[in-house]
């Protein structure tokens, strides 16, 4: 009942080509965005901003990038952490080396350099597929780890190899408080999510999906695999690079290559798998699951222990957290292998018929 679309007629091409053709979707998304911009700042405290929401937004952005590559184009990559690192370090370099560099331009330039690196490491995808490609993209991870640890230029020759930025400002708006940081990241995420959503509906997005589903058939109907694959690498690593820049600039403020280690690559890949491959919405669900759940468990388990009168030690909590987290991942993948986004669409289907299911 809530989700019935009968009566919604599209009488023009414009109406037919909207991002969200169903009115309910439009309203829900608009409400969500309005809530995120206005409601959330009124409701949550500093801890939520700094420790949960900001990392969630940034990693959701990165997951979006990974989803374009892995979910839409079917090119499995384990180099996402490296592209984040490229984004962060190159944004840092343009930011400190060019006087009066605007923050947003610096972050985008990080994305630009990540694009170049992404395309370069995407070249093997023209020959190798699937698991083999995943292994080939690992090279990006190892190479970037090495480069940012060893080449002094990238870190402005700091003795410890750790770099930091501060005094972030956009056109006179200083980004200082957690709320401002949150809004800044949210702005990036909303813009990029809309762009990505549009991109995957367009001709190029269809090419990616055709390549994912069967590359031989796609090339028979006139899709150029090289162009499609490399453009997916380019777009995806641009978004990941910007997310890397935000992670370094906004979330950590000071970072070292370990912040973008192989663990980060795996984390991003898990977000896409758990959230839902080939779904923009899935990137958000995946990021929420992977970022929030361990922190939630970490705080919830001691409270649960206290309820039954058991004091659990820090180590035990940490171990339990890993076990529960792992078990939940396995459970999710068994119950819903298409990810959390599939649950979302099932919910929509049910609401369409509610309260009279057949």
């Amino acid at each position, binding site marked *: 009942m809530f989700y019935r679309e009968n009566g919604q007629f599209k009488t023009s091409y414009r109406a037919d080509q909207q991002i969200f053709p169903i009115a309910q979707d439009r309203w829900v998304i608009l409400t969500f965005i309005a809530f995120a911009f206005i409601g959330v700042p009124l409701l949550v405290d500093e801890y939520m901003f700094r*420790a949960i929401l900001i990392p969630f937004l940034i990693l959701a952005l990165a997951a979006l990038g990974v989803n374009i590559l892995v979910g839409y184009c079917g090119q499995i990559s384990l180099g996402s952490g490296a592209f984040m690192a490229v984004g962060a370090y190159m944004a840092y370099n343009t930011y400190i080396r060019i006087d009066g560099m605007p923050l947003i331009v610096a972050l985008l330039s990080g994305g630009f350099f990540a694009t170049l690196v992404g395309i370069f490491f995407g070249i093997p995808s023209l020959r190798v597929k699937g698991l083999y490609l995943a292994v080939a993209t690992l090279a990006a991870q190892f190479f970037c780890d090495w480069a940012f640890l060893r080449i002094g230029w990238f870190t402005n020759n700091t003795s410890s*190899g*750790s770099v930091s930025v501060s005094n972030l400002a956009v056109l006179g708006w200083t980004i200082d408080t957690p709320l401002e940081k949150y809004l800044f990241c949210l702005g990036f995420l909303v813009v990029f999510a809309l762009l990505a959503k549009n991109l995957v509906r367009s001709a190029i997005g269809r090419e990616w999906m055709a390549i994912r589903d069967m590359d031989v058939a796609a090339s028979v109907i006139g899709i150029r695999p090289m162009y499609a694959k490399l453009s997916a690498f380019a777009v995806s690593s641009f978004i990941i690079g910007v997310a890397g820049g935000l992670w370094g600039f906004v979330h950590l403020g*000071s970072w070292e290559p370990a*912040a973008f280690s192989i663990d980060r690559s795996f984390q991003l890949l898990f977000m896409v798998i758990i959230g839902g491959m080939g779904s923009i919405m899935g990137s958000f669900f995946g990021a929420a699951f992977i970022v929030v759940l361990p922190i*939630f468990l970490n705080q919830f388990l001691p409270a649960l222990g206290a309820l039954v009168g058991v004091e659990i030690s820090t*180590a035990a909590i940490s171990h339990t957290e890993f076990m529960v987290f792992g078990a939940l991942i396995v459970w999710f993948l068994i*119950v819903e292998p298409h990810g959390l986004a599939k649950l979302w669409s099932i919910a929509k289907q049910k609401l369409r018929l509610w309260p009279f299911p057949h």
Partner: protein
Amino acid sequence: MKLRNLVLSVSIACAGVSAALVAPSAMAQAKEQFFPVLVYRTGAYAPNGVPFANGYVDYLKLVNERGGINGVKVSFEECETGYATDRGVECYERLKGKNGGATVFQPLSTGITFALTEKAPGDKIPLITAGYGRSESADGGVFKWNFPLSGTYWVAADTLIQHIAKKEGGSDKLKGKKIALVYHDSPFGKEPIPLLQERAAMHGFTLSLLPVTHPGVEQKATWLQIRQNRPDYVLNWGWGVMNSTALKEAQATGYPREKMYGVWWAGAEPDVKDVGAGAKGYNAIMMQHGAEPEAAVAKEILTKIHGKGQGTGPKEEVGQVLYMRGLQAAMLAVEGVRAAQDRYGKGKVMTGEQARWGYENLNLTQAKLDALGFKGVMRPISTSCQDHMGASWARVHTWNGSKFEWTSDWLQGDEQIIRPMVKAAADKYAAEKKLTRRTGADCQS
């Protein structure tokens, strides 16, 4: 369907329960000095992180047994970082406002220290990095909220070279010698490099840098290089499993352990225990203390805390190197608050900002240390507005196959070398951040 319903209802119930539990516990605490404890009891560095955490917590318990800080009881809460920077930042955010506000943070990881250095001034919470952290933060003129109390990696590197020079019979004998630095490839491991390079240029020894990637079990290539080059000394800047691996590799390579020197994080029982006799002769520079099972404070903890079954961790650990380091770190945190109370009112709970004043005006004389049970464990520490380090005493101890023994006199970092480097690095940081040095008036505040 049933399973899904069950899971759904359980998770809703969980969310409700946790919301109900979290809310009152934040309200109940009052009039207690809150010390957040960032630890890692899991992960690759856990063997070294656990004794430190136990020592830290036991000392806080002991403070309460002794009647608190001028009557103010101490409360604390642990948060597991797993040595990961982003988890450390999360812990910081979680604990900084709890129970009336955090007094001080001790991140226990160079990476987390770097990230928190950016955040602490905004939150007005001091950071103690006792024996680690960024070396230039010893300059209080720029780093108002950082306190690398009792030593930095530059002090460690400097005292090590002094010790080696003494062993060789004078610093002029270092000319032409080869010294290799085997280091953990992270900010922690890279910290000593500028100072060693400075010393290498001064004395004319060659320094070769041999990085080892996290967590440090891959060292075959490194030790192949050592076998080829045969350096006169190997400095080991390792942490956790890296140290015992280095010792095993040294044994396999046939490199004399007597010529190996660890930093103070590379010279504790967990590092050498597994290697046993293979580690005999291995040295490590120690910031102030070493293994001190005979110290008065260790005995007091055994009777007052472990004796009542309140102890954290095994009894045998009390007095071991890392346990003592945790103990000392907690002691410094508590004594800063005591110093702050002298100014802002005895028996009151200090805010982070007030505690900062205490850390900046710390004056731990030998008499005070002896009274606290640290007789023979450490030497006096006194800080000031400009000097946030307070002391740079160090000694070398050597593993004799079953325990550590002191093998050098007290050494002190050479101010002539370290001070200009600290100032230059701090100025560079200030320029990058567009900070101005603190004025005399700011020092009084």
